[in-house]
C-alpha cells in the first residue's frame, strides 16, 4: 500500500480536462484514483473513520464544483489534498470542541481506527497513557498522532504519511516555509516522546 501510494503517477492532465467539461465518467476515474489517499489524509487528521469518510465525500464534491477554477498552477493531487486537509482540519476542530464540551460525560470515547470505544467507568478509568499502551502498535502510533493539536497534526501527516515536500505543504496549508519546518520538528518531537512512553523504547 505504501509503495503504491508513493508511486502513483501524478499525470492527470487529460482526466482533469475531460472532467472540467462535465465528463462525469472522467471525474469518477479521478475519484477512484485518489479516494484512498484522501481518506488516509482525512483519517490521520481527524482520527475518526466515519468522519474521515464524510470529509472525503465533501472534498470530492467541492473539487468537482471548483474544477472550472482549477487552473493547473499546482498538481491536481496537491490541489485536491489541500481541499481534503483543510476540510479535515475543520472537522477535527469540531470534534475537539464537542469532546471538550462532553468532557464530563461518562461516555467519553477514545477514537480508534475501528471507531469509538467506550471508556470504562470513572473510578477505574485508565490514564491516557495506559489507554495507549493497551493498543497495538498502529493504534498507538495513531493515538500519538491524535495527541497533536490542530496545526501541527496536518503538517506531520502530510510530510511523514503522504510525503509531500515542504513547499507543497506550505501551499496546501498556506504556511511559510519556516513555519512548516518548525512545526514539523515540534510535531515529530512530540510523537517521539509519546511513542517512547507508549513502547518503553523506540
Amino acid at each position, binding site marked *: 500500500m505504501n509503495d503504491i501510494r508513493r508511486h502513483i503517477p501524478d499525470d492527470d492532465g487529460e482526466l482533469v480536462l475531460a472532467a472540467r467539461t462535465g465528463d462525469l465518467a472522467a471525474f469518477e476515474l479521478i475519484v477512484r484514483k485518489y479516494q484512498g489517499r484522501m*481518506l488516509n489524509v482525512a483519517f490521520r487528521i481527524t482520527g475518526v473513520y466515519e468522519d474521515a469518510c464524510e470529509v472525503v465525500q465533501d472534498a470530492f464534491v467541492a473539487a468537482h464544483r471548483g474544477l472550472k477554477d482549477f487552473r493547473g498552477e499546482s498538481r491536481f493531487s496537491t490541489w485536491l489534498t489541500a481541499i481534503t486537509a483543510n476540510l479535515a482540519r475543520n472537522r477535527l476542530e469540531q470534534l475537539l470542541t464537542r469532546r471538550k464540551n462532553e468532557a464530563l460525560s461518562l461516555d467519553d470515547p477514545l477514537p480508534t481506527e475501528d471507531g469509538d470505544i467506550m471508556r470504562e467507568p470513572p473510578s477505574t478509568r485508565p490514564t491516557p497513557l495506559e489507554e495507549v499502551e493497551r493498543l497495538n502498535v498502529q493504534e498507538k502510533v495513531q493515538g500519538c498522532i491524535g495527541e497533536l493539536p490542530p496545526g501541527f497534526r496536518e503538517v506531520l501527516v502530510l510530510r511523514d*504519511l503522504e510525503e509531500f515536500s*515542504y513547499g507543497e505543504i506550505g501551499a496546501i496549508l498556506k504556511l511559510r516555509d519556516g513555519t512548516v519546518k518548525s512545526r*514539523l520538528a515540534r510535531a515529530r*518531537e512530540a510523537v517521539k516522546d509519546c511513542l517512547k512512553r507508549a513502547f518503553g523504547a523506540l
Partner: protein
Amino acid sequence: MEHAELRKKLSAYLDKATTAAERLEIEEHLSRCPDCRDELVDLEKTVGHLRQLPGVEPPVWLTAKIMARVREEAEAKPSLWQRLFVPLRVKLPLEAVALIFLCVTGYYLARTMAPEVPVTAPPAAVEEKGAPRPQPPSPSVESRGEGSKPVQPPPPPGQALSRQAPVQEREESPPAFAPAPPPVMESPRALPAAPRAEGAPAPAVRPALPAQDRATVQAEKSESEYFGASAAKKAKKAARSEEPPAAAGVGANLLPRVVLRVADAAVTEGELRQLVTAQGGSILRREETVSGSQLTVRIGVGRANEFFARLEKLGSVVRKPAAVDRAAGDVDVIVEIETAR
C-alpha cells in the same frame, strides 16, 4: 552548536532541508556527541513508524456515494440558473416597461400640475373675465388670470370693451404681464365711448344683466381669442409696432373700474391724487373724458381696500370693483371721475 539548538534542527537535517553550512555544523557536533546521535536515531525511528503506518481502505460504497452527490449537484445547478435567470428574462422587460410607464405618467402629471402655480403676480381683478373664461392650460394665460380667482358674478361690465379690443391686445398680456400690462389704457375715446354707448340712457344704472351679457360675450370672445391665438399673435405684433400706447391701452379692459360721480371733477381729481399719494400708490395715466377725467391708479394690494374705502368719500361710487383678493402685488384701477349732470 548547543545540544538544544541542534535538536531543533535534527528534523530538518533528516529531510535534508538545512543549509550546507548548518549541515556541516550538525555533522561536526554529532561526531563528537553520542547523546545527540541517540536523539537523531530516535527521531529516525519515529519517522519510520509513521511512514510504516498502513493506509486505511476506503469503504466499497465511497465512490458511488461521491458520484451520486456530484451528479445531484450537476443536475441541480441548471435549474438554479433557470430559476434565477429565466424569471429575470421576464422580470427585466417588465420592469423596464413599468419604469417607462411611470416616467411618462410623471411627466404628464408634472405638465398638468405646473400651471396651477402662478408664474407672476398679476393684479387681482384684472381677470374679471377669467371667471366665465375657460382655463387654458398654458402658464401665461393662467398667470394673467387669476382667472382662478373668480370675480364674483356679475363681473364688472368694464370688460365689455374687450369686444372692441383687438385680439392682439389680449394676446399681448401674457408676455407683457408682470406687474401689469404697462400702458393699460385704451384710447381714451374708445373706452368711455363704449360704456357710454351701451349705458348712455342711464349711466348710473349699469344693470347686471347687460353686464352678464357682456361677460358672456367676453367669454365667447376670449374663447375665440384663445383658439385664434396664432393669428392673434401676428396681429398683436403688428399692432404693437404701430401703436404701442393704444395697444397697451386696451389692457384697460382688464382692469377694475371705479366710477365716481362728483360735483366738480377737477376738484375731485386733486383729492384723488392726494389719496393715491397717501396710500403709497401712483398715477399711471390720466385722460380727459367727456364728463371729467379718467385716471389709472396703481395701489399696493395691501392698501387697496383702504383706498377704495376712502374713494367712496370723494364722491358717490357708481361702480365698485370686486374685492381685491390677491395676496401681494399691486392693483391697477381705473378711476373715472364724472361730473354729475
